[in-house]
């Protein structure tokens, strides 16, 4: 069990791994927005935490002062190898233009609106099959038995890797994102992913398929094949970014529906509300926080930011800013004005947003079709993960 020193001053000494923050950050953000809208801490290095929509989106658009070369919310504590296997990290997410621009263009068509429609029936069948596995029992863990199982299999399909390894992939991704302050687990996750993709690249080189990994391998840049480290980084990105994030959004949405009977009944009785409700649930329970690095000393909104400082792009808090959203802390399923930035803002808008939306919608449609009435299991704990990605990790529900 990890422990963090207690936080007494959220404005000057915040900690995103604090247990209270992970379980219920909303009140903390509300308080910060009115007293200290860009908080600071020296825990794990000098780090800023904007909480207002205006500030978060302005930083996201200022790529000159705020670089994406370091996007991990929790820094890696340990010695970096002298010659890293992935010198460019996971492009395009960990890149600035020009590398960002062309690597992103390689990935985007795989997640276009049209392509994503093609993954829909596979996703629906997958959700249905998972529900078959537990519906007769009258209870399930909506996080581990359902939400956690969906995105990893869809992503495996797109990458052209075996869905049989889904649990292994999930373990590696959690090591990298959720247990990032645990040195051994992080190394285990990074090495597991890298070695796996090195093997897959060798296989595709001998025998190309029609999957994303094969296409990356056969991409030429300025007349030369794309560097292996870039192929590996982009492939690992698709897996890492496509698993924990969407699973957390599905889990948080099911937690909301398990605890808000009126919203649950409305979504069952009025399927037309689904598309707006998906956006509203993404707004209210945005899972993802990314980081930026300050490139040169700059004063931003009165804050003296130094080169090398980290900024936590608090998209989840921006999405609850009452300056932008009426009744920001309420879920209004048919909210008509909803410029949420759950998928970020600016040039790093989540490349998989169409896919994530589709997965969330199908996961909720299938669950509500077959399990319209459910609630939290009495006396059993719901647990949350936070930091880079927030969502429920244990979500025991019953549907007698």
């Amino acid at each position, binding site marked *: 069990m990890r422990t963090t020193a207690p936080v007494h001053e959220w404005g000057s000494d915040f900690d995103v791994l604090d247990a209270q923050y992970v379980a219920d950050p909303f009140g903390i953000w509300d308080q910060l927005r009115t007293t200290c809208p860009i908080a600071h801490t020296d825990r794990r290095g000098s780090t800023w935490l904007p909480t207002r929509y205006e500030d978060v*989106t302005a930083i996201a658009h200022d790529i000159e002062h705020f670089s994406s070369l370091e996007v991990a919310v929790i820094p890696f504590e340990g010695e970096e190898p002298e010659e890293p296997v992935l010198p460019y990290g996971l492009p395009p997410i960990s890149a600035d233009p020009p590398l960002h621009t062309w690597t992103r*263009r390689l990935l*985007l*068509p795989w997640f*276009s*609106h*049209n392509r994503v429609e093609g993954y829909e029936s596979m996703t629906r069948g997958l959700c249905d099959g998972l529900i078959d596995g537990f519906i007769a029992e009258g209870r399930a863990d909506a996080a581990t038995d359902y939400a956690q199982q969906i995105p990893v299999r869809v992503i495996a399909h797109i990458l052209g890797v075996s869905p049989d390894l889904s649990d292994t992939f999930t373990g590696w991704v959690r090591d990298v994102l959720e247990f990032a302050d645990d040195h051994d687990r992080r190394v285990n996750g990074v090495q597991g992913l890298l070695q796996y993709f090195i093997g897959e690249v060798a296989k595709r080189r001998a025998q190309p398929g029609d999957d994303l990994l094969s296409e990356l391998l056969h991409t030429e840049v300025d007349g030369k094949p794309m560097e292996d480290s870039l192929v590996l980084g982009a492939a690992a990105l698709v897996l890492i970014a496509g698993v924990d994030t969407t699973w957390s959004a599905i889990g948080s949405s099911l937690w909301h529906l398990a605890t808000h009977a009126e919203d649950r009944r409305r979504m069952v009785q009025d399927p037309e509300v689904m*598309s707006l409700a998906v*956006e509203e649930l993404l707004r209210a329970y945005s899972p993802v926080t990314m980081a930026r690095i300050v490139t040169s000393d700059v004063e931003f909104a009165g804050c003296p930011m130094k080169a090398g400082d980290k900024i936590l792009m608090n998209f989840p808090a921006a999405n609850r800013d009452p300056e932008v959203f009426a009744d920001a802390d309420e879920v209004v399923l048919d909210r*008509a*004005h*909803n*410029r*949420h*930035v759950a*998928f970020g*803002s*600016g*040039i790093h*808008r989540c490349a998989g*947003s*169409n896919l994530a*939306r589709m997965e969330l919608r199908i996961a909720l449609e299938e669950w509500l079709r077959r399990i319209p009435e459910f609630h939290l299991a009495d006396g059993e704990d719901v647990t949350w993960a936070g930091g880079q990605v927030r969502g429920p990790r244990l979500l025991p529900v019953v549907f007698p």
Partner: protein
Amino acid sequence: MKIRVDPDKCQGHARCYGLAPELFEIDDYGTSTVVGDGSVPPDLEDRARLAIANCPEFAIDEV
């Protein structure tokens, strides 16, 4: 009513297409453009306003 999408602001969130697929086209990279010259039939004006109000990049305007 007539609308336009600013190609420099659009980042491919595809919210406009989700709300009003009759009024927008999206390419493989997510970039949105208006259908035709951006003229909105009277019965779709409400949805055009919805698209404007939901774009996270403020990329859609009434002209």
